[in-house]
C-alpha cells in the first residue's frame, strides 16, 4: 500500500537502510562476543550512511564510513583485542532488581512518546518549507560546497574549538593509556633476577658498556683512515 504512494527505488533504499540499522543495532546489544558486537556496529553504521546518502548528505555519508567504520570501530576492535576477549558477562547478576524490565519499559515509553510527538507535530507532518533563515540545501556536489562554506564561515568558531577538543582528547588518551611508574618495572626486574638466575640478558648488557660502544665506533674510523 505504501509502496504505491512512493517511488519503488526510494522505498527499497529505505527498507535496506532500516534493515541494516535495526539488525545491526540489535546485534550490538544482543551478541555475547564483543568482537561480534563491533562487527554489528559496522553494519548499523553502513545503514546510517545509506540513509545519509538517500537524503543528499553525500559528504557526511563518506565521513560516516571513514570516521566511524574506519576509525572508531577499528579502535574498538583494537581495544578488544588488546584487553583480550572476555565473554564473562554475568547475565544473572543484577545489581538492581528488575533493572532489565524497568529499562525495557522506560525505553518503550520514551520511543512511543517520541513517535506520537512526531506524528502530531507541525514540523513533521505539516508544512515542510519552514523558512529558517539559513542557506537552502543544494543537491549533489553543491551540497559539499555548501557544507564547507557553512563550516568555515558560520561555524568557524566551533570548528576551531573542535581542533582544540581533538588535541585535548589525544593528549588525554595518551596520558590515560600510558603505562605509568617505570619504578615498578625496575623492581619487577630485580625480583626476577633475585628469584631465579635464569638466562637474563643482563649479562650481555653488563659487558656491553659504553666503552664497547666507543671502541666499536672508533675501530671503523681507524680502518678507514
Amino acid at each position: 500500500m505504501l509502496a504505491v504512494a512512493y517511488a519503488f527505488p526510494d522505498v527499497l533504499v529505505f527498507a535496506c537502510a532500516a534493515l541494516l540499522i535495526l539488525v545491526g543495532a540489535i546485534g550490538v546489544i544482543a551478541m555475547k562476543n564483543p568482537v561480534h558486537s563491533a562487527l554489528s556496529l559496522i553494519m548499523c553504521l553502513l545503514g546510517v550512511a545509506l540513509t545519509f546518502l538517500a537524503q543528499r548528505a553525500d559528504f557526511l555519508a563518506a565521513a560516516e564510513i571513514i570516521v566511524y567504520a574506519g576509525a572508531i570501530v577499528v579502535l574498538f576492535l583494537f581495544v578488544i583485542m588488546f584487553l583480550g576477549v572476555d565473554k564473562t558477562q554475568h547475565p544473572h547478576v543484577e545489581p538492581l532488581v528488575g533493572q532489565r524490565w524497568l529499562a525495557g519499559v522506560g525505553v518503550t515509553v520514551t520511543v512511543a512518546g517520541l513517535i506520537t510527538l512526531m506524528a502530531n507535530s507541525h514540523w513533521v507532518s505539516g508544512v515542510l518549507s519552514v523558512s529558517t533563515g539559513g542557506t537552502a540545501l543544494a543537491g549533489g556536489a553543491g551540497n559539499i560546497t555548501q557544507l564547507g562554506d557553512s563550516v568555515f564561515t558560520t561555524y568557524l568558531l566551533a570548528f576551531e574549538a573542535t581542533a582544540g577538543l581533538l588535541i585535548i582528547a589525544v593528549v588525554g588518551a595518551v596520558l590515560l593509556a600510558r603505562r605509568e611508574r617505570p619504578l615498578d618495572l625496575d623492581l619487577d626486574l630485580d625480583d626476577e633476577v633475585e628469584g631465579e638466575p635464569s638466562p637474563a640478558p643482563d649479562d650481555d648488557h653488563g659487558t656491553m658498556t659504553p666503552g664497547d660502544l666507543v671502541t666499536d665506533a672508533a675501530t671503523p674510523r681507524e680502518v678507514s683512515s
Partner: protein
Amino acid sequence: MTIPASWYLILAALLFGIGAFGVLTRRSALIMFMCIELMLNAVNVTFVTFARSMSDIGGQTIVFFVMVVAAAEVTVGLGIVVAVFRRRASTSVDELSELQG
C-alpha cells in the same frame, strides 16, 4: 515522491531506543560505549532528516561536529577502559564501586 521525513525520524527513534536499552542493561564498558555510538548516530539521522525537510544546511554541519565529538569521546573513553582494565582485569562497570560511600 520521496520518502517522508517521518519514516526516517521513526527509524532514528527506534535506533535511539535500542541504544538506550543497551546502555541500561549491558554491563561491559565496551558494549556501553558502542551503544552510546548508536544513540549518537540516531541523533545524526534526525539532524540529516531535518536538514533535508527544512532545506537548511545547518543540520548537516551539526552532524559533522557530532562526529568529531564522538571520535574524541571514544578515544578518551577507551583510554579510561584500558587504564581501568590494567588495575582490575575487568571491563565490567559493576566492579567499579570504590567511590560509593
